[in-house]
């Protein structure tokens, strides 16, 4: 019997944690009890960045990460969660599930990481004391993000100043005005109480952030082929589309709670959305430039997927 340790930033009782619990149960079933998954919730084993390096080394067996975090280590792996790329959820699911799994798996493979499959973090939105609907409002404003060359480039494209803010300081940085905005998924925004300090959330659809379930290649190679296949099957028991729907449904409820508690939700008008999207083609070229040959391959896979899904 083998026990594998799985690390996640999600706290117990959240939909992500429930998805992982379900996965753990499925692995148990699929391997007839030969492989057990022990889940460490709530960043107990460290931040996503730290855990990712440990999964690559084989110290932690499996990790469930936001695509954005994982791409800090594997820059070209950002493309499945490319900023403002997808038109709607249907198109996104089609492209990711049918066309991006293999390219993304190959990208993580170069860092000794095996992509078991996609999940969902939920969209990242701009939150602040004021709305961020139009580029005119945002020009020169500071946004607290986890900085990387691609993230920097995106925010600069939008005329904003990306500023590195540690998670523990997000609330006080907003309060004191070190940053005007930060970027968060709805869940964290509402659950952490950040919405009391920064009551306005702008649903700009900045980034549809996937989750990635990554396993150490070293650990995986130590399992039998049947066990390897069983783990993949266990994740596929619930299709990725359903994982997305679960998270998005949960966020919709939280958003209602936020409104009921006196918070503001800003939805973009078509003109505002067009203004956000106007500079994006230039940004995509920049993103490819920043991620080299491997990035170009990923972007081409994305475009090919979009073309195929449009049919």
């Amino acid at each position, binding site marked *: 019997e083998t026990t594998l340790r799985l690390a996640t930033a999600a706290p117990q009782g959240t939909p992500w944690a429930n998805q992982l619990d379900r996965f753990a149960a499925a692995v148990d079933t699929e391997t007839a009890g030969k492989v057990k998954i022990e889940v460490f919730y709530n960043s107990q084993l460290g931040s996503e960045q730290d855990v990712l*390096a440990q999964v690559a080394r084989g*110290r932690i067996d499996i990790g469930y990460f936001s695509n954005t975090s994982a791409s800090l280590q594997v820059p070209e792996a950002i493309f499945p969660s490319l900023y403002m790329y997808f038109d709607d959820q249907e198109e996104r699911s089609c492209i990711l599930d049918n066309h991006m799994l293999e390219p993304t798996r190959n990208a993580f493979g170069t860092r000794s990481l095996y992509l078991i499959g996609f999940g969902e973090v939920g969209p990242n939105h701009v939150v602040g004391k004021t709305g961020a609907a139009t580029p005119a409002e945002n020009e020169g404003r500071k946004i607290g993000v986890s900085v990387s060359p691609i993230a920097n480039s995106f925010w600069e494209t939008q005329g904003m100043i990306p500023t*590195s803010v540690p*998670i*523990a*300081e997000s609330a*006080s940085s907003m309060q*004191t*005005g*070190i940053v005007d905005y930060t970027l968060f998924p709805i869940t964290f925004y509402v659950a952490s109480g950040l919405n009391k300090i920064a009551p306005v959330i702008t649903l700009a659809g900045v980034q549809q952030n996937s989750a990635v379930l990554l396993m150490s290649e070293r650990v995986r190679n130590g399992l039998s082929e049947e066990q390897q296949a069983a783990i993949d099957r266990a994740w596929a028991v619930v299709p990725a589309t359903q994982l997305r729907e679960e998270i998005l449904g949960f966020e919709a409820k939280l958003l209602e709670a936020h409104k009921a508690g006196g918070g503001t939700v800003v939805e973009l008008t078509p003109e505002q959305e067009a203004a956000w999207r106007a500079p994006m083609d230039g940004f995509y070229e920049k993103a490819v430039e920043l991620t080299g040959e491997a990035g170009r391959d990923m972007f081409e896979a994305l475009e090919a997927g979009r073309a195929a899904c449009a049919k």
Partner: protein
Amino acid sequence: MTGLVAALLLVAFILFLLVIRQPLVVILLAVTAFVHLVWGRGQLDYIVEDMWVSLDKELILAIPMFLLCGGVMTHGSTAKRLIRVAASLVGHLPGGLGVACIVSCGVFAAISGSSVVTMLAIGSVVYPAMKEAGYSNRFALGAVMSGGTLGMIIPPSIPLIIYGIVTETSIIDLFLAGVGPGLLLVTIFSIYAIWSNRSMPVTRMERSEIAAAFREGIWALLMPVILLGGIYSGYFTATESGAVALLYAVIIEAFVHRELKPADFYKVYIEAITLVGALFPLIAVALSLNLVLTENRVPVEMVNLLRDWFTSPLMFIITVNLLLLVVGAVMTTNEAILILAPLLMPAANAFGFDPVLFGIIMILNLEIGYLTPPVGLNLMVAMTAFRQRFGELAMAALPFIGLMILSLALVIWQPWIAMGLVG
């Protein structure tokens, strides 16, 4: 190997390391290695990985900034100028110089991140002055030593930064929460200074002296305004405020006060580096030990165990306070925070204590530890700096320890003293 045998072996191993006089960093590294070998997967390179992970954090930059800033201020004449301002304002009260000592410690504490630096900077000027003015040796020493400890509760504070890093608590919130208890201590110490020196002769308040003192001291007085104002208004992060304060201090000391020569500048840096070289590997190893304990679910089990033992939050916090007072007696602050905060904070949180408030409670306890034998850093430094017997110093500290315990109790009873400023 059974748990008991392993635990006994570990104790024997630690005793062996102590007997052959190993540095703390070796002892911690060896203990961490032992834990990995016995309870973990036996891969010692994990320790190095965790050390790296612990240091690769932007928040940690605040520590050298405040160390450097404190160093520059100590080499210059800032302390002298602050004391002159304070003395001109409160010198006419009974025990006025005592109050001036406490108040200037409080102001200097808003620049310096450490207890010893505050005590030395203010004490080296004000202690001889109090002796000359006829204050009792014990009161003068007690005021200087306990005033010094304000350095770690009034922000900026290196122990609070370390607490924030190891427990992932907002350092800015911790800084905000330190203000109230810091002012409380300044008030209580000042009242005590007036009361215990009520029979001392008083001087008259001189307008011209106040004006002159302010003229001389204005640049030094602006320092805490820039530093704390910068943080609270959102111009800078804690780290940046340290950097800006350092720049300001260098400019003031080198060009306005003209007290800082290039050679001093180099010396200040080497002193800070020496401290960082002793402290940072310790921080890294302590966090690495903490990570391997978490991996083996030790904190979770400790919380469960404590929940079984204690029925009420009050019983819990009283016990923790007693524990911390004992720890403060025998350990230095930074090490105590590094080792205990990650274990105690989750438990305190489970009993309903806010992580920020608990940080302040911890710091207040360990602040008392600066004045308690056998390992009381302010006592030890004062022994050399003011050439006093250890016993005399311990006696001098006694009434102030009582006042600090009173303040601690007040903060626990009325948490808004600390949390009022925290959003």
